[in-house]
């Protein structure tokens, strides 16, 4: 319950933060929402030498549509996603996701950027961003670079953010009309990581066939997983039971879960199949509206 000692740094600007990160090396960590890092520090599983608190840097918290994207500032809190009218009306998948993360107190602190940058396959936003085809904006000494979400999750707890880079923005392409999404998560109780969860985003064409589909899977592998074969199974097809079934099976096949207290691997695959079916149905309903 008592974390190891560390030096606390509170930069006021982004360049200052990036500079501090570079100066203090690998044992320095960014403190944004802190809702993953601080628990690990309390158990002394994490022992950063320096914490660089970016919470006082202005201009990192926003939700806006701009240049064809929904842009979310890296420091935007989950509670702000939940409260956003824009998200509520146009991005149901994002809203679904934000409301099932941890619990209300955690969502008041936790940031979307942190949820992604932590690289934890059990976190909820990664699958959602995979389904939405998002982009990650990383700011480092050399300025900004944009990383496609498909290139972002490298390995367990590891992203393609380089040391000295800070996740400053998430860009989600504004979905065309007749789009809809859903996030379905099975958890043992509120506050738990997902036993398994599925994020689905689809766009239908005029005839009701799937024009574009994105499917992301939570906590069924060393990284969040994009179920490409499941997406392919939907392409150009109407969402009848057979199509949904085929996509769900493909999603289950894409999962590489490990057994833990939440259940054996086979169960988790089964869950992915079931949740994919249900998420597709819900997404289709939303897309049709």
């Amino acid at each position: 319950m008592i974390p190891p000692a560390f030096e606390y740094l509170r930069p006021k600007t982004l360049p200052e933060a990036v500079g501090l990160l570079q100066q203090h090396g690998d044992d320095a960590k960014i403190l944004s929402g802190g809702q993953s890092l601080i628990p690990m520090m309390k158990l002394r599983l994490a022992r950063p030498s320096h914490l660089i608190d970016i919470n006082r840097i202005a201009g990192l918290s926003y939700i806006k549509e701009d240049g064809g994207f929904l842009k979310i500032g890296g420091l935007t809190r989950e509670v702000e996603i939940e409260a956003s009218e824009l998200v509520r009306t146009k991005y149901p998948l994002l809203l679904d996701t934000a409301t099932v993360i941890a619990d209300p107190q955690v969502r008041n602190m936790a940031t979307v950027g942190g949820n992604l940058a932590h690289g934890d396959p059990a976190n909820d936003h990664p699958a959602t961003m995979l389904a939405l085809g998002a982009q990650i904006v990383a700011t480092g000494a050399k300025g900004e670079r944009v990383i496609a979400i498909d290139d972002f999750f490298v390995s367990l707890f590891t992203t393609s953010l380089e040391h000295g880079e800070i996740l400053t923005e998430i860009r989600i392409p504004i979905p065309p009309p007749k789009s809809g999404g859903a996030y379905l998560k099975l958890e043992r109780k509120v506050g738990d990581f997902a036993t398994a969860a599925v994020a689905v985003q689809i766009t239908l064409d005029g005839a009701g066939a799937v024009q574009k589909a994105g499917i992301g899977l939570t906590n069924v592998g060393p990284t969040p997983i994009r179920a490409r074969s499941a997406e392919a199974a939907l392409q150009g097809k109407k969402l009848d039971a057979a199509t949904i079934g085929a996509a769900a099976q493909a999603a289950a096949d894409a999962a590489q879960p490990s057994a833990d207290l939440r259940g054996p691997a086979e169960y988790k695959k089964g869950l992915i199949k079931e949740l994919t079916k249900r998420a597709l149905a819900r997404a289709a309903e939303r897309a049709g509206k």
Partner: protein
Amino acid sequence: MQKTSAEISGMGHSMKRKEDGRFIQGKGNYVDDVNLPHMVYAQMVRSPYAHARIKSINTDAAKKVPGVLAIITGEDLAKANLAWMPTLSYDKQMVLATGKVLFQAQEVAFVVAEDRYAAADAAELVEVDYEELPVLVDPHKAMDADAPLLRDDRTEKNNKIFHWEVGDKAATDKAFKEAAVVSKVDALSPRCHPAPLETCGCVADYNKATERLTVWLTSQAPHAHRTVFALVGGIPEQNIRIISPDIGGGFGNKVPVYPGYVCAVVASLTLGRPVKWIETRSENLQSTGFARDYHMTAEVAADKDGKVKAMRVKTLADHGAFNAAAQPTKFPAGLFSICTGSYDFPNAFCEVDGVYTNKAPGGIAYRCSFRVTEAAYLIERVMDVLADDLKMDPVELRKKNFIPAAKFPYKSPLGWTYDSGDYHAAMKLALDTVGYDALLKEQAEKRKKGELMGIGISSFTEIVGAGPAHTFDILGIKMFDSAEIRIHPTGKAICRMGTKSQGQGHETTYAQIVAQELGIPAKDVQVEEGDTDTAPYGLGTYASRSTPTSGAATAMAARKIREKAKKIAAFLLEASEEDLEWEPGKFFVKGAPSKAKTIQEIAFAAYTNIPPGLEAGLEAVDYYDPPNLTFPFGTYIAVVDIDKGTGEIKVRRFVAVDDCGNIINPMIVEGQIHGGLTEGFAIAFMQEIGYDENGNVQGGTFMDYLIPTAVETPHWETGKTTTPSPHHPFGAKGVGESPTVGSPGAFVNAVVDALSHLGVKHIDMPITPWKVWNILKEKGITG
């Protein structure tokens, strides 16, 4: 019983709780809130291994951390003969490990420092060199020839703690041989933990000048703990004061003495400064008293019509590394022999073997009267298996076998005398409330559609309120309990008890008993517990014993006061005692109600106008030894729906009909039932302290030891019947644990019922979605 006015608020009034004022304002005083001048902080160093030899302990680096004052090891304690301490079950337990460790998270060294931070930093630097030993986690293997010997300190060179049996084996075996039907279930009551929201801890303050030791302790039984401290530590008992301040939930977890307490006392004795030791949640779950871990087999013999003939139970009890179960001395398996439940079994035989494993010690009762939860679960489970085997409605089977109301007091085949009961009445109310027939119809229709819905019944009988003293003791101390009432000159009162509330609302309910008996408004009665310097000796609060014992003592003490008050009233009214009549709050002359003296006037006279020949004052003490236990009962019905795709179980409805005799405060009783049902729900569906084969605790934090939130917790529907206890002074029985005892059976029976048409007879708790899904997959229903 005459109901008092709202002003007096005696028994039966849903009086708002007197203790709430401080809690809702953040002014409760829990152990961690105690802050003394010059207080220092302690942190325990614990073993990461489940079984290992300690080759060496090096504290040099830890001692160099600025602020570190002392690091105590087992060897240090051994010099003072304190390396081991007695448990409540006549075993002994290491305070700090010497020689070897026997479970993961076992106490190895105790670091004391000026602040929490130095203590935590130094604890990490205590270097312990371990040599790993083979780990025993499966109790079934404990008695195997090749099993590692855990307790080499004992003369018996095996892992067996006890064998205990009760009942007529020969008659039972004979009944089984002759039976038309025998049903059997192997059921595990998994290891779980009471996990009160406040963890265990203490502040030990030894004053060298006065030679007195004061310990603020998270204790459900402060007096018993004082005696243990005196016997173990050699400190004269008058020089020990235990204060149990506000306790943030206990549920059995705060009955034993833990190594941290002893270490804090030793550290305070050594340093002459107050020492605070508060365990973390993980330490609480991993090292302090667990519950259950009973591996049970039950068989029931019956005739073709479902009339039960005999019950046979064989159980393996996993007690962990030390037998630290909190049980009455003569009952190594607690009151497990209540396992014939609400049914009229002519014959029964029950045997229990206790074994050691490399797991945390304990075996305490998690909101349960000494293994009653295991027993109630087992009988309710096996009755459903029998019903299924006979293709009988489980309700009909139960009704057929209930002990009839006319048979009370009822002598059970395993030796208990049930005080009172009307099982049919509780069952009927529960069935009517839930609408059983309509549910059966709905279930049949759903099954046709392939939907899974289950109805689970549990008609449990509890056994609570230990004593009586002739049979029950803990470490030789008889299980009576006490109350002391003093009436002040202005007619107000203070009441002190040997019990200790941990949220049960004693400050309100005991005051209501006094109000009922003496007519002093409950708001004018101050109730105080937990300070051994002031409260009369008692065994504490657990096993639903407060109302049956201290509650009874309160009534008896009040009646003693009333006797004296009558003498004073007679003197004041110039009447003879025989001519006086009592109604709550006053004595009056028969036939002349205006000639009366209120209890307040009498109290004033007791100090100002004392009748000749009478002692001044108005007070009484009572040490109540109950003539028998009390036997609360009830019928619980759970209705569940199962999601075939995910294995999730939704408790759609839960009806709980309880009969706990006469009720002091209906609001508080209902609150107790809500809370107990929620714990039963958690046990049935979520909670288990598991171990992997290396002895690593699985479920050692709140991340994996799951406490349901408001979202998962079902809505509870409660109801009651009233069958007073014939031997209790005001006919009460105790209720705090009935819901935890009775509900797991209802939940599990409901899930099994939902799957019974698929051939499912039993699923072990906790019934998680993946267990259900696996069954459905196996049966080809899902996947």
